[in-house]
């Protein structure tokens, strides 16, 4: 599979290794492996679930930190000072990510899960899936957007600034948005539970990542940090993700075996939301005559999600066996093929946008 040749964009094979190109397959295999583990070796998840402190599962916390820490360790918050460089792009992406995306996700997921699919999904379970969708909607992509930006020949400096800005906003906006939308959905989650999950899975990895970055760069230099340390630490995220999924589905086995169709039903609103958000941001950028190398990464960041955070929050708030955790995983399942389709659309429509030099102020 390649992106359009006439756009001179890199091919998917150039931009993505085998692991990430076939992520959906590995996620599907993790689901099968987890279900088999739960069914044939139930002692494993039972034993792991015993290691709890203050209702926080230690093995799960370690896996979640393994997923999130490498992403936090590569954030350069000083890049946020570049916000003045592409103001239109940043207005679009910030508005779409924080004022539109969480609410369209809630509305679309509510409509499908609570109304359209009502005959197929019992209401308590539908509410759990809705909660998972809300968590996905409140967590825009934080790292994968560099790959999507590369595949659409996005502006590297702009991509870095928008990621830093979104990460900073996420620190303050994720919890209030989640609490607000869960409240509207009549899904009661105590504030202290949300605050604990934000502290455990955003604040701690973020602070650890920031301190690690500062300390190691001061000691060994930025080049060593990027090319030696991050080269070793960066790949831990997808490995942590897959192991977490195996563990999660070891607990979810009975739910999946009883309702295999639910995975498809959950995927439908998530796919619609992804495509809608992409076109809102992309269309807005077109209307504002934003250059394509800003419009494409600006649309990709909202369309894609920070799955590790959504999975972590779902597990922390609702548990490994919850429908919310399952819904966030379905997001991971459809992510890569869907985003690659949007990459193709962005590359094929490049000629509708001004080139960077034409659009410069």
């Amino acid at each position, binding site marked *: 599979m390649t992106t359009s040749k006439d756009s001179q964009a890199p091919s998917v094979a150039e931009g*993505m290794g085998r692991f*990430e190109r076939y992520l959906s397959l590995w996620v599907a295999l993790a689901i099968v492996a987890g279900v088999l583990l739960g069914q044939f070796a139930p002692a494993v998840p039972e034993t792991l679930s015993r290691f709890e402190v203050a209702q926080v599962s230690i093995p799960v916390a370690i896996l979640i930190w393994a997923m999130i820490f490498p992403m936090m360790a590569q954030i350069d918050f000083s*890049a946020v000072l570049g916000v003045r460089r592409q103001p239109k792009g940043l207005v679009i992406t910030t508005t779409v990510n924080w004022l539109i995306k969480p609410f369209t996700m809630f509305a679309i997921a509510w409509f499908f899960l609570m109304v359209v699919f009502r005959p197929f999904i019992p209401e308590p379970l539908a509410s759990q899936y809705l909660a998972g969708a809300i968590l996905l909607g409140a967590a825009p992509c934080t790292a994968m957007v560099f790959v999507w930006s590369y595949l659409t020949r996005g502006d*590297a*400096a702009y991509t870095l600034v928008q990621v830093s800005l979104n990460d900073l906003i996420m620190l303050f906006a994720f919890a209030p948005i989640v609490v607000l939308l869960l409240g509207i959905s009549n899904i009661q989650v105590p504030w202290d539970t949300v605050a604990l999950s934000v502290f455990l899975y955003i604040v701690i990895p973020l602070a650890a990542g920031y301190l690690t970055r500062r300390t190691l760069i001061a000691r060994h230099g*930025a080049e060593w940090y990027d090319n030696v340390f*991050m080269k070793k630490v960066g790949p831990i995220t997808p490995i942590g993700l897959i192991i977490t999924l195996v563990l999660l589905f070891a607990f979810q086995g009975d739910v999946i075996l009883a309702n295999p169709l639910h995975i498809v039903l959950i995927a439908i609103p998530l796919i619609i939301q992804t495509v809608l958000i992409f076109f809102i941001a992309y269309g807005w950028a077109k209307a504002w005559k934003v250059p394509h190398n800003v419009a494409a990464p600006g649309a990709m960041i909202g369309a894609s999600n*920070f799955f590790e955070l959504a999975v972590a929050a779902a597990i922390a708030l609702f548990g490994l066996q919850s429908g919310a955790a399952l819904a966030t995983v379905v997001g991971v399942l459809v992510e890569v093929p869907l985003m690659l389709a949007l990459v193709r659309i962005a590359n094929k429509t490049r000629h509708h946008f001004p080139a960077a030099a034409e659009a410069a102020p």
Partner: protein
Amino acid sequence: MAIAISRRAREFIQRKGGVVTVRLAPRHGCCGGMASLAVADAVEPDDPAGYRHLEREGIRVYLAPELVDEGLSVDLEGWGIFRHLYVDGAPLKR
């Protein structure tokens, strides 16, 4: 091997010792994958032999070979201790 360095960036680099390294820094995707973006640091590279170098208005520039023909510009942004160099003009690379 064209590279433009703004006046503010030049002054900043000169205060830091008159050397700048422009290189690729990898960013890892959460679902795997990686893309590299061009960054500039006002320090000597770890392995100067792995870079092309040139003198530009009193500044020694070390440029990663992959960035030689990109027509880059180096500028300065931020304030106080948060001031840092940034690179414009290079697309993300694998």
